[in-house]
């Protein structure tokens, strides 16, 4: 299964690219997928409109939303997937639940600059799990696979235990499927082009993934 451009039936630009999932992983987890877009952008302070959007998003998100989050289909799908891959979603939070918890603890979505703020807005609005990588440091297409013996994640001591699910490019793991990003693939000071990846799990509709990627792209391009 190779990478290819997704149909952009809704005319969303840039259109996303589908990555591949290792066949034996796909057989275990039907519906698991990864797609991404690349946009020009560099990390830095969020411009005023992005901060304002973040503030408005905070004002629309209350404790009751956080409590009922796990009943909504997309956050529930990620919670279930976390259980299925051995993680406890009440300890290792799903991306949207982690943001909800931070919102309640901090009293609002605190700005963390770009691209983090763009990801926060899109994740809260859609529930989709998003990751940012330095597009120029990725080698080829992204995929989801299990780690091979001897592989490691840059910046983390030791080898990955065999069979760990990772997001990888054609050379090496770029990050854990849900968790740390490799230092050599993450967004840093020198980043000029950002790859935004969405991890899709069973029960998450493609249109929500496209919408999340489009929202991040629109935010970064407007910045």
């Amino acid at each position, binding site marked *: 299964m190779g990478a290819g451009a997704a149909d952009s039936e809704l005319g969303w630009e840039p259109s996303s690219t589908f990555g591949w999932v290792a066949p034996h992983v796909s057989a275990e987890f039907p519906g698991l997928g990864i797609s991404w877009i690349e946009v020009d952008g560099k990390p830095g302070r969020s411009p005023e409109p992005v901060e304002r959007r973040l503030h408005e998003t905070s004002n629309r998100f209350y404790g009751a939303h956080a409590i009922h989050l796990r009943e909504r289909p997309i956050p529930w799908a990620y919670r279930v997937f976390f259980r299925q891959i*051995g993680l406890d979603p009440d300890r290792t939070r799903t991306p949207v639940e982690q943001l909800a918890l931070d919102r309640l603890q901090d009293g609002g979505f605190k700005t963390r600059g770009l691209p983090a703020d763009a990801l926060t807005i899109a994740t809260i609005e859609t529930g989709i799990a998003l990751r940012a990588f330095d597009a120029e440091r990725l080698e080829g297409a992204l995929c989801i696979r299990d780690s091979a013996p001897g592989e490691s994640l840059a910046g983390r001591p030791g080898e990955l235990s065999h069979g760990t699910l990772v997001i990888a490019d054609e050379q090496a793991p770029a990050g854990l499927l849900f968790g740390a990003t490799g230092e050599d693939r993450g967004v840093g000071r020198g980043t000029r082009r950002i790859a935004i990846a969405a991890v899709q799990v069973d029960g998450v509709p493609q249109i929500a993934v496209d919408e999340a990627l489009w929202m991040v792209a629109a935010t970064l391009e407007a910045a």
Partner: protein
Amino acid sequence: MDGDEQLARAELRRQIGRLEAQLGSLFADAFPRLRIDAGVAAVSSEPRALGLGDLEAIRDSLATRIGAARRQLQERAELETRNRELLERMLDAPAEHKWLRISRTDVGEPGCGHWHSRPRLGPLGMLMGWWRVRVSSGCPLSGRLAAVERERQESP
């Protein structure tokens, strides 16, 4: 054999999904009256495809959690029913429930109000047996709380 195992794993994952939905629903129903413990220990520190044993353990732990959550909710509902009955008796005969205070939380209602059996006219009412139930005015207003906070900050 491997095909059978794969089917078994798929069935367990389906059951985990269904149980997670039930637990999420109980968690939301219980809030804010009761905090349901929805935690099921992680079987791995990193994401991985789990074997039959691990999936079974997660399924069983979720089922146990749901059982415990239902019991907690049932016990809480029974307590709230008893408190509502007590409140009715207190409203009918305040003098028989001197100084008893029942909060809205005790009867499963949101908010900060309470019902309090108190004597009318203070000590005189106590001596004369003039008891009544006072209903509090509810949660303090945020403006009032802010004013108290300001006063506290301004005072030396």
